[in-house]
């Protein structure tokens, strides 16, 4: 038996939008090896049994093997152009592949996805041929966030009789895959807002559009705000007052101390998706949003506003372009990363005691803290008596953690990563999140 060509093929070069010249190593194909085995068996049996008709079995195979001679290219040029270099989870990226220099040989293209990417059925392979440059468009689906090469492209060439073949690999270009922002139904707004213009209705009066009340006219009031109906009733000039519209600082705190669950739906995956969804909503409301990673060391992105800040958040998650401080002590964070009076929305499985202690510390420092508990592993697996007892104790411990946080005024909501993230919007929860000790 001849050596397998697949075993000899290895990735050779990096992908590029400019054509890459790839040297080819031609080997005998699997089809040729089968024909060779058939011819050999026919000749051997003919000799052993002394029956000349068995030579006829070997005839076509030998003709196909030894008579066929054709020129084979020594190198080809391959270019792979991705349709995008940035995408969200679940989106597809198309790769436009151009192969030239194959000299009329058949070309097969096959995408091999790596971890974090999935093949798209029917769009992950193409076969073509021809004398000129051949083009094909293949596609991969990005399944998990991160910066990585989503796969490699296998380029296989066959001669016209499919007796010789060669395989070469091209690594695809790096792609940034961002976590898909979670859907959620509301945004928590603090009771006291910073003195910056925004979209949230404040308790103080100002120049907003939300009606706040009626008061007596004083010198300097604008004439257009006079409430003529109230003036007629009371006999003195009355003016309408409006609520001021303010913005708030929101810091998204992501607990990366423990990452549990199946790949693609771990606690950190859920945390990042939730944080991005919440961040998107607050940025749309003209709030300033920052990000803090709580892991072996703290990474942070100072609060900012606007569309550009959203892409900074994405980059901070995927690429890691963020400030950092050694250790995981929240008190070491600079004031810019955690502005006084900011609303802190933490995403955590609440498994690490240090993180729970950090939440308590933040609350005691008068931050409004809301915790979204993301624990992907389901319970109820315990079947034996002792297992059930252990699970019950564990559940009680978690309940105790939630209770202790609730006593401090920290609201804890649970989210499984699949449903719509429901943040507490009722008045009691809002007051709790914003209450000062």
């Amino acid at each position: 038996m001849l050596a397998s060509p697949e075993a000899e093929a290895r990735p050779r070069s990096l992908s590029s939008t400019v054509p890459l010249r790839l040297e080819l190593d031609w080997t005998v194909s699997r089809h040729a090896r089968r024909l060779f085995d058939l011819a050999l068996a026919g000749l051997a049996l003919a000799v052993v049994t002394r029956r000349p008709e068995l030579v006829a079995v070997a005839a076509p195979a030998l003709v196909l093997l030894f008579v066929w001679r054709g020129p084979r290219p020594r190198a080809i040029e391959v270019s792979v152009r991705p349709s995008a270099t940035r995408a969200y989870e679940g989106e597809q990226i198309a790769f436009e592949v151009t192969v030239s220099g194959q000299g009329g040989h058949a070309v097969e293209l096959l995408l091999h996805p790596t971890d974090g990417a999935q093949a798209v059925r029917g769009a992950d392979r193409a076969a073509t041929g021809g004398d000129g440059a051949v083009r094909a468009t293949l596609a991969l689906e990005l399944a998990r966030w991160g910066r990585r090469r989503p796969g490699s492209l296998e380029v296989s060439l066959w001669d016209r009789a499919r007796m010789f073949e060669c395989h070469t690999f091209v690594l695809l270009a790096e792609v940034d895959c961002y976590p898909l922002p979670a859907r959620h139904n509301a945004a928590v707004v603090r009771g006291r807002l910073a003195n910056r213009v925004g979209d949230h209705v404040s308790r103080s009066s100002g120049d907003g559009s939300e009606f706040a009340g009626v008061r007596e006219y004083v010198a300097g009031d604008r004439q257009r705000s006079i409430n003529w109906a109230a003036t007629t009733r009371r006999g003195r000039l009355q003016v309408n007052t409006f609520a001021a519209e303010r913005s708030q600082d929101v810091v998204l705190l992501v607990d990366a101390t423990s990452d549990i669950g199946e790949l693609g739906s771990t606690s950190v995956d859920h945390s990042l998706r939730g944080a991005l969804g919440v961040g998107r909503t607050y940025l749309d409301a003209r709030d300033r949003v920052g990000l803090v990673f709580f892991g072996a060391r703290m990474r942070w992105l100072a609060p900012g506003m606007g569309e550009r800040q959203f892409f900074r958040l994405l980059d901070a998650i995927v690429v890691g372009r963020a400030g950092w401080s050694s250790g995981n002590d929240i008190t070491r964070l600079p004031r810019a990363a955690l502005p006084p009076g900011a609303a802190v929305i933490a995403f955590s499985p609440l498994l690490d005691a240090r993180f729970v202690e950090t939440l308590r510390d933040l609350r005691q420092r008068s931050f409004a803290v809301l915790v979204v508990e993301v624990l992907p592993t389901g319970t109820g697996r315990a079947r034996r008596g002792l297992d059930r007892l252990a699970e019950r104790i564990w559940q009680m411990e978690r309940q105790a953690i939630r209770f202790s946080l609730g006593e401090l005024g920290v609201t804890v909501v649970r989210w499984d990563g699949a449903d719509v993230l429901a943040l507490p919007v009722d008045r009691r929860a809002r007051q709790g999140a914003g209450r000062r000790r």
Partner: protein
Amino acid sequence: MRGTLTVVLLGAAATVWSAVPLGGTGWPGGLFVVIAALCVVAGLVRLILKDRVREEQGLFAGGLASLVDGADRLVQSLPWETGAAISVLVLETLHRSRPWHTGLLAVLLVCYLLAVNRAESAVPSAVFRGQARMLATSAALLVLVTGVAMVPSARTGALSGWLDILAALAAMAAGGLALPV
């Protein structure tokens, strides 16, 4: 799917063609029929499973998962089609000499291997038209060698069988050299 069906039909046809009549071949005949059938079926399974996306096994995969994975690797790695072709040839030799029957079997076997090649490739059919001329000439050569084998020999002496084989080989070589490929 049509390519896979063609492979199965050709494999079954070659097996049946070489097996009939099964009487007189003894237990080796039955054994090689079973081997050939098994190889055809295993080759079919290989073709069906070749495009399946394999999930990576965890470090502590279960026994059943390991067994399925091992069977999958076995099916993908062994040359089942070669085994089927050789089994069919051996089965044919268990019968008495019948040159035209063997010639037709050779056609079936070559078609079977070509169909396997077609089924395991995603290349469009147009690419295969390039070898049509060569296939036609090799078929002509097959007919020539079968014809030589059908020429009655004197069958005297110990070397007569060898001489017949040499004659067939010579006819094949001459035909091969004269091919306009």
